[in-house]
């Protein structure tokens, strides 16, 4: 090998290393300026149960119960409250973007949701792996929450309070 060729190879190697590193900047640029996040699921599928569709699901009206917060009774976030004012629905699950995050191995990323139907709050399980329990019974259809009912997801239990 001639001296010149070795010299070029030696410069070339360090240059290739740097080109590699600089090319990664394209990814990091997205970190700095943000990437658009479009939540397709939330837009198209989440409103399975809405104020309008509730009647067709056969959810009867009951006594008026107007809770203002979710009180967490047991689990890792025991003792905390989540306000319900001005909310149409509350998504519950392990996913970071849920309204109520449950960091629990037994919770699915989108586990259940509470929907405000008329004066009532209706609990619906979103096909979670381990199910949602209302007063000790696993729910299969959307159920209206009555005062004093406790909801259990994994090791977390909570209730609605006015």
């Amino acid at each position, binding site marked *: *090998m001639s001296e010149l060729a*070795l*010299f070029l*190879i*030696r*410069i*070339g*190697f*360090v240059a*290739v*290393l*740097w080109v*590699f*590193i600089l090319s*990664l900047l394209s*990814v*990091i640029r997205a*970190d700095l300026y943000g990437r658009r*996040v479009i*939540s*397709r*699921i939330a837009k*198209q*599928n*989440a409103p*399975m149960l809405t104020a309008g569709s509730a009647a067709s699901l056969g959810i009867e009206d009951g006594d008026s119960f107007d809770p203002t917060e979710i009180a967490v009774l047991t689990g890792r976030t025991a003792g905390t409250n989540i306000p319900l004012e001005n909310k149409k629905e509350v998504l519950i699950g*392990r*996913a*970071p*973007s849920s309204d109520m*995050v449950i*960091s*629990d*191995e037994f919770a699915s*990323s*989108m586990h259940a949701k509470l929907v405000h139907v008329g004066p009532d709050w209706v609990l619906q399980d*979103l*096909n979670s792996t381990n199910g949602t329990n209302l007063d000790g019974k696993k729910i299969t259809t959307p159920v209206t929450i009555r005062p004093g009912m406790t909801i259990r997801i994994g090791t977390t239990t909570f209730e609605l309070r006015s």
Partner: protein
Amino acid sequence: MSNVSLTQAIPMLLKAVPRSRNFEAVLLFWVAGIHAFALAQIQLAVSQRMSWDMLYYWAPPTISAWILHYVLRKYVLNADGLLLPLAFLLNGLGIAMIYRLDLAEITRGGEDLFAERQVWLSCFAMLMAAIVVRLVRNPLVLRRFPYLAGAAAVVLLLLPAAPVIGRTFNGATLWIAIGDLSFQPGEIAKILLAIFFAGYLVSRKGPLSEIGSRVLGMRIPRAKDLGPILLFWVASMAVLVIQRDLGTSILYFGLFLVMIYTATGRGFYVGIGLVMMVTGALVASRLFGYVGARFDSWLAPFATENYTAPGGSYQLVQGLFGMAHGDVIGAGLGSGFPQLIPLAESDFIFAALGEELGLAGIFAILAIYLLIVYRGLRIANTHQDDFSKLLALGFSFVLGLQVFIVAGGVMGLLPLTGLTTPFLAAGGSALLANWSIIALLLVLSDSSLRRVKE
């Protein structure tokens, strides 16, 4: 889409491959090319011709990296796309450098060869990383046994001091050996410690951060909340005394300080911790000859009495001369004299790379480490779960701090320690531990991005 139920829609959307996996595949091709370039350059410079030998050092790690990529595609589709290529690039550069030192050793007629072992250890470590990804798909399972992880870490740290299996090299008691097999348990301990700290701090951060009286505008925690920091300070001092290694002690205590600071947001802990650590290190340097000797070599490496002392600054000075010879663009792979540095294939691989790749090359390597740490911190930043946040932060910080301590030691900025250069240095336990950290970071990034990508 409107007629598709939610249960059907999720798997349909998840089948669309995220950008990060395809980007990772492209980067892996690129990295494999860089490795081939390095090996070819070494062969050309040392023996003036290329031989098929290089395939032996190139193909097995590349195949292992692709297997890991396949496992990521299968189980953690949304994991970070940069971590695997970056770690693999460092790993392959390490193999190339060790191969180059082996060639020099063969020319000298020596028989201390490391490259072949390093190739198979790298493959093993990458396959273990694949297994870790498969087993720990949900990082929350790590939260179940914090105290068990802590106890296991303490046992691992004490093992090198055990009578039969403990081994001491260069004054540091960091190894255990059973027959021909030697292992550095401290490397695995850093993973377990991060899991322990994260689990402990998530459950205790309330009392640790909020209770206490205000003195001079600073909130001083209650005496009983100071317990853990004192306990851990004693433990890391014990590591310093038993293992005779300042680096290991600083690494674990630094990890603890950063994690407690992140969990509580109180500078008080960092302040008092740094004071305690510096005091401890200074006292140790007075009391124990081996720590004192390291300090002397660091403060005056060119003094004749330090240079000629056994285990003195000879190695450090050889490394400094090597890096000076490397200049800005380096002597070129295979064209320098890194074989003149004692332990160039393990403790001083940083100096060996500094000589052959120069300042530009060493900055590139530091930039790769920086990117790995940056990706780790980003995972910690975007994750919503507190435990996962702390864990990702702990892992990336411990990698970064280790690089700082090692590089600082080799450059004469810090006292020399027995820590290894992550991914580059020859040694199976370090590779295993660091690839496991990468695997856990990948799993953590997947669990944080799963929702966003949907």
